[in-house]
């Protein structure tokens, strides 16, 4: 049986290539969200006032709280990689678990936020929303699609990081081989960056 160190020395592995592959995937994500940001910017340009009125419906406090949660989860993800680089497995598992918990916190917040909107009758296709001016319908359409797609990325991130935590506990991810964790981290930070732009564009334009 070969030990980890032997494996690291003799098995062909290209960590730089693996990270580059992940970056290329992130660029396709940029295209996906970029297209929506294009759509947002044009519709906002045409319906500026109605966008501002519609944005008043969103709770800035909840949005700010979620921003803090997501920024903190990015920190814990970076720290998890720092810990594994220093061969501190349990600390890395701790930070990865914390990242997952924060992601859940984000989703729970989002759930309550959306529930309140639904309760007020503001959801795609609802009578109350359809009776509003066109610009406000567009705003809420974009709000649900963009934060929804972002939320889906958070859900995927939870599974991805959960899988990495398992691999770390099984020593598959270790001090000499942690590119998988790095790639998961890159994905998670991109989800964070997308939120960094979504937050002001939807919550702070009143």
């Amino acid at each position, binding site marked *: 049986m070969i030990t980890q*160190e032997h494996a*690291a*020395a003799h098995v062909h592995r290209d*960590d*730089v290539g693996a*990270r*580059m592959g992940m*970056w*290329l995937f992130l*660029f396709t994500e*940029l295209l996906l969200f*970029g297209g929506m940001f*294009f759509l947002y*910017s*044009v519709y906002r*340009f*045409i319906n500026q006032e109605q966008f501002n009125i519609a944005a008043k419906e969103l709770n*800035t406090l909840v949005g*700010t709280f979620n*921003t*803090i949660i997501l*920024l*903190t989860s*990015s*920190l814990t*993800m*970076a*720290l998890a990689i*720092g810990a594994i*680089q*220093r061969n501190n497995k349990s600390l890395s598992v701790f930070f990865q678990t914390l990242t997952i918990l924060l992601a859940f916190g984000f989703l729970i917040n989002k759930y309550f936020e959306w529930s309140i909107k639904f309760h007020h009758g503001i959801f795609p296709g609802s009578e109350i929303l359809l009776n509003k001016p066109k610009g406000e319908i567009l705003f809420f359409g974009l709000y649900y699609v963009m934060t929804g797609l972002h939320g889906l990325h958070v859900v995927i991130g939870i599974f991805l990081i959960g899988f990495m935590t398992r691999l770390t506990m099984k020593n598959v991810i270790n001090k*000499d081989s942690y590119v998988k964790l*790095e790639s998961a*981290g*890159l994905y998670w*930070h*991109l989800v*964070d*960056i997308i939120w*960094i*732009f979504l*937050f*002001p*564009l939807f919550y*702070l*334009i*009143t």
Partner: protein
Amino acid sequence: MEKHNSLAEHKQHGYGIYILVWLALLALTAVTVTVAGINFGGITVTTALLVASVKSYLVLKIFMHLGAEQKAFKVFVLVALFFIIISFILLFSDYSFI
């Protein structure tokens, strides 16, 4: 093996810098929320986007280790950003001069 180790260590950041970046990100969030609270009109969106860009730069450079990566990575990211900006300019050349 030795080579691999030196490569890995090259990319290693201290925990301290991560905490610092996190604090900076929180401070910048506070700035955007405060500026949005005061009614500056058109400047609000510009400030928000500027602050968001600074925050993204910090995340890219430190959290995503772009600062420590090979040059090719940086070129990739710059090319991607270049085309996004070009697309925005072309898009608005259509819309803003109707």
